[in-house]
């Protein structure tokens, strides 16, 4: 068997050691492992549990540090909520790059926000999305995000202080080629259309969802402006 397959199985153990419990060969049924590979896993899980738990804890600590370090405004304005979210954020088998991890964390905050929205959660979600877009490697397919918030979390993230009052905002975030992240305030209607782009619809398909020729012309003009600004939409 290849060393890779054993490493994949070990990765499964590192990421899930706390819930896996005692060794059993069935835990590794999805891996193509030889008997000697299974013996390695048995030895490690039986005789080196402290080491496995430490490895998993260090991995989790590192992920927490990286995420918190990328969200300075949230760490400053919403520290307790950020800590609670991080506590519940699972380590995956293979963390991928930081941009991907932050995108997953933004989704995690978004799920919490859908249940019980607060300005802290909205800020964390916004800042995580912003950071994930900012950190996209130049070779990656450019992504964007549409964010709705009951507070001006963009201003909060920029100034590191809360606004005086709630102000519903719709943002469109994207990274133009080689540039920093652009954050645009958009109308609720345009935000709806941009979400259709995010679902994979083409420009024609998005425009066809509008009822009148006048609406389609106005939307086409807005979309054209975004494209000229470097927005990654079709």
């Amino acid at each position: 068997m290849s060393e890779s397959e054993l490493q994949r199985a070990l990765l499964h153990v590192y990421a899930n050691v706390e819930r896996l419990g005692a060794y059993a060969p069935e835990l590794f049924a999805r891996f193509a492992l030889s008997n000697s590979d299974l013996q390695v896993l048995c030895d490690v899980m039986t005789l080196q549990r402290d080491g496995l738990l430490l490895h998993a804890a260090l991995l989790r600590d590192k992920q927490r540090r990286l995420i918190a370090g990328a969200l300075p405004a949230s760490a400053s304005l919403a520290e307790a909520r950020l800590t609670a979210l991080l506590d519940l954020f699972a380590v995956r088998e293979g963390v991928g790059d930081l941009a991907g991890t932050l995108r997953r964390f933004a989704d995690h905050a978004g799920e919490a926000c859908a249940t019980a929205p607060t300005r802290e959660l909205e800020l964390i979600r916004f800042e995580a999305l912003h950071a994930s877009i900012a950190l996209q490697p130049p070779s990656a397919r450019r992504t964007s995000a549409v964010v709705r918030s009951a507070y001006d979390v963009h201003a909060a993230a920029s100034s590191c202080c809360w606004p005086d009052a709630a102000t519903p905002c719709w943002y469109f975030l994207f990274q133009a080629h080689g540039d920093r992240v652009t954050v645009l305030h958009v109308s609720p209607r345009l935000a709806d259309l941009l979400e259709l782009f995010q679902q994979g619809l083409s420009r024609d398909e998005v425009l066809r969802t509008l009822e009148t020729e006048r609406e389609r012309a106005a939307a086409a003009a807005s979309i054209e402006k975004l494209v000229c600004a470097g927005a990654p939409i079709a």
Partner: protein
Amino acid sequence: MTDRFGLLYDDRFARDLASRPDAVDFLEIIPDRYFALDDLAALPDLPTVFHSLDLSIGSDEPLDPAYLDAVVRLARHCKPLWASDHLAVSKIDGTSLGQLTPVRCRAASVKRMAGKLVEVQERLGVPFLIENIAYYVRLPGADLSEGELLHRLVAASGCGVLLDLNNLAVNAANHRFDPYAYLREFPMHAVGEIHIAGSRRRGAMVIDSHADPVGELVWELLRFAASALPSVRVVLERDQDLPPFGELVRELSFARECVEAVR
């Protein structure tokens, strides 16, 4: 050659370093943190070496071309004197694990790992060193010691080694072996750089924290290693719970004293 002493570079002490550039002989840079070239504008004008994290020399798959390209691009900009990475698996199926994980030291792995080391050296065009990591799990099924594996990698690829004395001290404490016996088996003739750092207890084990002062055993190991080498290049790694810059300089001065004491 002369002994040289450097620091793992951290943006947080950039201003202090700018006012005391003579405090260090060179800087070690983790290229992964600076793949956006703009970030390097503020780097002090000092000789640099690279210490990458994700070449995954120990994994069973080819080098990640995008990652290697990024390191090479940065190397063209920074012109490091040499570069290094770890004897570890950090990537599987192209996905980063987020943590260095240990390899099984097996004779059958030498050809594959050496091939990757040769490729990296050819692409970077500078000497390349491979570092012993701290590991908290020892993988059964090895047919070589770590020292033997490193000897074979040096012979097969022409690479050098980066001897991390704190990783050695941590492993010796956690896995209960004699660090001096390890050093006697280590390919000392190929040591191009030495790391020193701090550790701390966590539960029943010791971790390579990069957050604490260098421990007494590491200073002793530095004296021992330096006495076996005609010259050393020592880097102090501290990137967590960063103390005032003056404290880093004091630790680096103490490293100089340790080395000078055995010259």
